[in-house]
């Protein structure tokens, strides 16, 4: 009920914008969208069932892998950097490179759609869950230690319980991503589904159909998101309040071992890359190995020209990624703070935030570009829209973890909302914020390459999309390696800052 005024406002603004843009074939309002859905209910229903099925399968598989990986990381802490980095690198692989390979591997059918849905969800769940598995008071582990039990007991009796709210946050964030992953998977050559209809509608200049599909996709994502949220609240009516209890965490490692691990993970990734392609005997015409990329960029006669092309595109991409990344994080954290100060506002605004994230970027990109231009502002906005929502959810979740006793102390001193926010809730939020900030690195790069591919025709996204007509797979895989490495480096940089900040503000995370 609290959401009602917000929803009504959104519908009104939407219809108004559509009337304003009438005749431009860019936006259809809620009235036309409803009419279209009513008139084509059967077709849309079948498409929705197909894509939902693909997304559901990918969601289950992706999250199961995420849970296994997170448990592995906790049981083998020494392997964390390696597993985490490889998991990140796989998540960063651009669709333009993986799509055709998945299609060759799976053949006709839903294989690539399910795989891309799984790839779209597993990393966010993994990262959130690892934070959660650590979010238990030091004293509980001391108790496990004093009984002479090992990491397995700690995992089962302490960590899993502490992690459940986090797992639910992760599962909630993952739901819209699975749906989008399945839709984009249909771009690799599918007979049916929402993605197929979306391509067709855009080509046909059928703006009612385009926005009906976008609305359905967003609506379904929001419903699933809300249902999972309701389930979470029901399952954990009183969430553990002791999460931020202090303890003597020991800060392990430093920049130097971190560098070593980064190198090791890059090497591991190269081995996996090579082994997968050899294992599936993929033809080296389109499935370039690490050594092919080396030849392309270093030893081939035209290597210098190749490097120059790649570097120019990389520069264009970075120019848009960095401001979009900063803006998205600031918006996410800022809105979370605002919602905590004014919880009633959150009820109205949260659905809008989810909708913005859940509407397929393929549909919104042209509209954002129309509104803000094909230059920097449009692309930066697309990046920010893509990452601010997971940041917002994570930060809200983090603030809710503020221990009740701490808040009681503030209340007993009649402290204001602002000082409560600054001194208790924001520090409590930091672990979740940094988890989101790390997660946002690959999301930002994916968003910018999609925008470049679909709208602006610049940068690495465009360079990779060119492959479809030029068969320049050496360039595609060089760009893929560069994108992946950049994401890894960005991630490592955020992790470094995180280590410094959390050592002061949330030492239990350093365990």
């Amino acid at each position, binding site marked *: 009920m609290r959401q009602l005024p917000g929803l009504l406002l959104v519908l009104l603004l939407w219809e108004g914008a559509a009337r304003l843009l009438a005749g431009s074939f860019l936006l259809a309002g809620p009235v036309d969208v409803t009419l279209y859905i009513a008139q084509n209910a059967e077709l849309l229903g079948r498409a929705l069932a197909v894509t939902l099925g693909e997304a559901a399968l990918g969601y289950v598989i992706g999250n199961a892998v995420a849970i296994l990986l997170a448990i592995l990381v906790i049981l083998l802490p020494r392997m964390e950097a390696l597993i985490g980095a490889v998991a990140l690198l796989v998540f960063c692989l651009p669709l333009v490179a993986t799509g055709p*390979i998945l299609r060759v591997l799976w053949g006709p059918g839903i294989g690539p759609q399910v795989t891309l849905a799984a790839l779209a969800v597993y990393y966010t769940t993994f990262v959130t869950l690892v934070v959660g598995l650590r979010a238990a008071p030091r004293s509980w582990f001391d108790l496990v230690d004093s009984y002479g039990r090992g990491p397995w007991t700690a995992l089962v009796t302490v960590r899993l319980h502490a992690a459940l709210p986090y797992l639910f946050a992760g599962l909630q964030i993952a739901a819209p991503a699975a749906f989008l992953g399945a839709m984009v998977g*249909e771009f690799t050559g599918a007979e049916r589904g929402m993605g197929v209809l979306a*391509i*067709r509608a855009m080509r046909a200049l059928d703006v009612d159909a385009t926005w009906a599909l976008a609305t359905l996709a967003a609506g379904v994502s929001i419903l699933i998101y809300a249902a999972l949220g309701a389930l979470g609240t029901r399952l954990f009516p009183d969430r553990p309040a002791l999460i931020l209890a202090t303890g003597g965490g020991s800060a392990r490692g430093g920049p130097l071992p971190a560098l070593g691990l980064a190198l090791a993970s890059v090497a591991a990734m190269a081995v996996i890359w090579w082994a997968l392609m050899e294992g599936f005997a993929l033809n080296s015409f389109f499935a370039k190995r690490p050594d092919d990329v080396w030849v392309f960029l270093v030893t081939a006669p035209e290597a210098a020209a190749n490097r120059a092309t790649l570097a120019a595109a990389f520069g264009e991409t970075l120019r848009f990624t960095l401001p979009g990344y900063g803006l998205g994080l600031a918006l996410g954290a800022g809105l979370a703070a605002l919602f905590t100060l004014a919880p009633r506002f959150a009820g109205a605004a949260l659905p809008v935030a989810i909708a913005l994230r859940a509407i397929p970027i393929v549909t919104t990109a042209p509209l954002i570009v129309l509104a803000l231009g094909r230059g920097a502002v449009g692309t930066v906005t697309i990046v920010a829209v893509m990452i601010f929502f997971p940041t917002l959810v994570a930060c809200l979740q983090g603030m809710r973890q503020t221990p009740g006793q701490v808040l009681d102390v503030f209340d007993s001193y009649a402290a204001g909302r602002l000082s409560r926010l600054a001194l208790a809730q924001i520090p409590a939020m930091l672990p979740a914020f940094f988890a989101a900030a790390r997660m946002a690195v690959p999301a930002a790069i994916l968003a910018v390459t999609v925008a470049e591919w679909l709208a602006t025709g610049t940068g690495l996204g465009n360079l990779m999309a060119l492959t*479809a007509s*030029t*068969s320049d797979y050496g360039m595609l895989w060089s760009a893929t390696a560069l994108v992946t490495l950049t994401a890894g480096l960005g991630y490592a940089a955020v992790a470094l800052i995180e280590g410094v900040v959390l050592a002061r503000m949330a030492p239990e995370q350093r365990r």
Partner: protein
Amino acid sequence: MDIATLSRRRLLQAGAATAGLGLLGRPALAATPVTFQLSWLQSVQFGGSYIAKSAGYWTDEGLDVALAPGGPNAPVEPPVVAGTALMGISAADYTAAAVANGAPFKILLVAMQKNPFTIASLPANPVNEPADLVGKRIGMATANTPVLKALCDINDVDINEIEIVPTQYDAAPLVAGQVDCLLCWLTDLPIAMTMQGVENVTMLMADYGYAVHSQTYIATEDSIANRRAELVALLKGEVAGWNDYLADPFAAAKLTVEMFPDAGLDIETQQLQAVAQVPLMFSQLTDENGFGWWTDETVAANIETLALLGRDVTPDLWDRTILEEVHGT
């Protein structure tokens, strides 16, 4: 009228197929499974192939053909190189690029004699000939800059006088006034505009010297050597299907919509597209020699345009021996 004749046709086809089975008493021989990789989502663009499938032209040849759809992220060349598809639908420029990057392809059949690339504009500010491009903003993928450059070179237009605006591939930027014209296919965006009631002007680049075979069927040298019989059978069915298509494009449109009820196809759009691609695919050359034909002269013209696109190819890229076997020449 149309509907009556169509259903009669289908009845006859169905009857013939059943009768054939009965008379020959052919045991259910395991047909050889073959995948044919299409270059885009299912639509009447591949109408002749659908006819071949539904009329049983491939079954008659002992093939069980799967028509694999393409999409925005589904390049044709990888599955053909990998062998998951026996044959794929490419274009001479794409094939030339793939060969330059090490793919052992040959062109076996040219379905679109005329390249479908078109400059689409609005009647208030039309592009009727290449010279009209001067001073215009053209919306296109930057990937296609060499295409525009080639058109300009052939027609003595200075490409620097044209402002290239990178856009996604749909007609909205033109209709919304962000650009003055679009580089697109004759058979998709202009038809979409017509269907939405937006009057438009088209200039087919093939009419101004841009000679690049499109919708070319490609296979690897290995397949040509070792799976020749299957390729001959596949092309036989194709030729029969496209001959039926020419006789009645509306029937092909109807069949397309019926075969793919989940594809969101609209019968009117499919009919317009079916008719629009006829002049691109059929000509005096194909009337005289059969569907998919080419000559040394058309290849020479292609090689000239491909050179302007930065692709140096020889006539070896085309291999007509299989098509000759199909047409019995």
